[in-house]
């Protein structure tokens, strides 16, 4: 076993641990917005590390893998932002533990006007 496949395997394992913890977060969090917090962050770093591990194992793929990482880093936050925005306008409530909701206050003000 050469050093680069060992290093690549360790990085891929770390990535899959983060993906697992993200999935656990999606299962355990109380409402949609908190679930998306767990989902977004862990999928971004988890996918990045998994791809990077593959790129280190097979270094001839490193270029392709880096391009994939750039695209994931650019598109992942936008998709989760779109989902959260759609959910809030659909009226999906925050969990009862929530302390403040400025966006809802703003919307109700607009309705009064």
């Amino acid at each position: 076993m050469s050093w680069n496949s060992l290093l690549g395997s360790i990085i891929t394992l770390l990535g899959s641990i983060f993906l697992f913890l993200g999935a656990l977060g999606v299962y355990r969090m109380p409402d949609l917005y908190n679930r998306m917090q767990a989902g977004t962050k862990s999928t971004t770093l988890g996918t990045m590390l998994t791809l990077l591990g593959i790129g280190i194992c097979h270094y001839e793929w490193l270029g392709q893998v880096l391009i994939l990482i750039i695209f994931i880093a650019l598109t992942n936050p936008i998709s989760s932002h779109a989902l959260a925005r759609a959910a809030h306008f659909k009226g999906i409530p925050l969990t009862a533990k929530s302390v403040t909701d400025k966006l809802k206050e703003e919307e109700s003000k607009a309705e009064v006007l």
Partner: protein
Amino acid sequence: MNKIVKIVFSTIVLTLFYFIWTRTTSVNNILVIAGLGLFVSIIYRNYLRSPILSPKKIAYAIFYVFYLFIEIIKANIDVALRVIKPVIPINPGIVKVKTKLKSPMGRLLLTSSITLTPGTLTVDIDGDTLYIHWIDVKDKEESGATEKIVSNFEKYLEVIFG
């Protein structure tokens, strides 16, 4: 003149991505793709951004990428520590913050960065007002939340996008 620089830059970037993706060594392939890239760049000529050329901005951009990567790692450790506890320690809410950035590209990068950093998720944007879902609300007021969430990124993005 400015438009030609934009089109040439976009063509080079597209060709470079194709070259890295396929690792082709045939010159004919690269010439065909450069032609196609030029065609696509001319179609989208009104939407292209001019390349960032000043050395100071490039240095800040490179530093920003590293800073963001460290923040992403911190965010993941934060989420991991939260989900493995028996009772999840959360104190969520949606807060309102203001941004000083004017350019659309700067605002896009700011919202994306906020989404990727510990405990924050951008829900809506309206002009210079951002609504952010915060997993652990430390300050309900606008000024305090702005200080804690936005100002770290704004320092760099203000220099990069003017």
